[in-house]
């Protein structure tokens, strides 16, 4: 008879929500919403007059409309606001057409540029979004308008999903993967394959040869950094540089990438995963104001 043992979900990151202590939506003018339904995570953001009011960040379920509803409901939890009070809402991300209460769907490239501009300031020219299942390199101007972009969604190499697979394989919690990978004395050669599935079998081989966990993680993080580094080469890296998405929280990849590109990314006190949803909420505000003008 099979015995259920306690399992730890090493890949599972903490979902979160936040409300600004300084803003009361009742005193505000335009209340706009942004929902970024990604392949791995969904974020809902509400802004009051273009200022961040509240947000939630949670895992995307198998049902995109339901994930969007849940994320927005959680973001609004305890604020007294309801979805019908939002003047306009923009959906973005992989599941953007599946946001039931959205006024409009806008591509995540435009939203990340706009959101990156808000989070990191107008000096940002290059934004790298390392998402759950794809990777985007964006160049933007001082207003957060896209100047050029490149998106790789052909495979999950260099993405959050790949990191989740490695966290699970090594039994290291996803939030500790980056720090642990930096504990190596000498940098091992990167795993030769960036494909997640191939890299996973390569890593199991390395573990069998007696490699320590941190060494395997270092080899994977550096392969990941190298891969997105070459992706950035095509559009070029102009100062200032910022990374958004879940991988921005992984110092194992971020530090190695900074070294490879010889440029230090900007930091933010906000959650790096909400950039797309912030951009969407800012677009929603612009759309609402445009409607008012015409």
């Amino acid at each position, binding site marked *: 008879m099979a015995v259920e043992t306690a399992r730890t979900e090493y890949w599972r990151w903490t979902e979160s929500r936040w409300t600004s202590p300084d803003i009361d939506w009742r005193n505000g003018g335009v209340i706009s919403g942004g929902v970024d339904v990604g392949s791995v995570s969904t974020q809902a953001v509400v802004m009051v007059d273009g200022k961040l009011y509240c947000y939630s960040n949670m895992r995307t379920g198998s049902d995109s409309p339901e994930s969007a509803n849940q994320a927005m409901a959680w973001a609004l939890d305890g604020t007294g606001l309801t979805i019908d009070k939002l003047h306009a809402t923009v959906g973005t991300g992989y599941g953007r057409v599946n946001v039931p209460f959205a006024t409009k769907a806008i*591509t995540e490239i435009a939203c990340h540029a706009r959101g990156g501009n808000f989070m990191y300031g107008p000096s940002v020219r290059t934004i790298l979004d390392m998402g759950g299942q794809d990777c985007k390199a964006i160049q933007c101007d001082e207003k957060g308008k896209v100047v050029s972009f490149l998106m790789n969604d052909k495979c999950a190499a260099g993405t959050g999903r790949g990191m989740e697979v490695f966290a699970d394989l090594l039994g290291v919690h996803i939030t500790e993967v980056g720090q642990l990978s930096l504990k190596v004395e000498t940098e091992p050669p990167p795993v030769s394959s960036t494909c997640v599935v191939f890299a996973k079998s390569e890593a199991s081989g390395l573990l069998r040869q007696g490699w320590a966990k941190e060494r395997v993680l270092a080899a994977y993080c550096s392969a990941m950094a190298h891969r997105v580094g070459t992706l950035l080469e095509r559009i070029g890296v102009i100062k200032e540089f910022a990374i958004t998405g879940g991988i921005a929280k992984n110092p194992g990849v971020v530090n190695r990438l900074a070294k490879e590109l010889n440029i230090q990314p900007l930091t933010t006190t906000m959650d790096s995963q909400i950039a797309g949803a912030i951009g969407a909420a800012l677009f929603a505000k612009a759309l609402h104001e445009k409607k008012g003008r015409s």
Partner: protein
Amino acid sequence: MLANYGYKDGSGEFFIVVDTDKCDGCGACVPACPAGVFELVENQYDIDAENPIAAVTKEHSKKLKYSCGPCKPASGYDKAGMACVKSCETRAIEHSW
């Protein structure tokens, strides 16, 4: 804006670049491409834009190497002679390989 559609993998870089500042949304590339790689989409990068812009379909952006293969120099075409490039009067379309 330069929109890079495509990917880079172990065998090379396969991108179609659409310059949306040059593209006037005429749509000539859509029927011109024998593989049906292009579509017209709303210009979401510029909120005030009124014209649509040409884009590579989601389906083809992941297999451009194969979609564009029959028109490539190895098959006897030069870049300037490719159906999409030739159809675009404003010269908004470029190929990376």
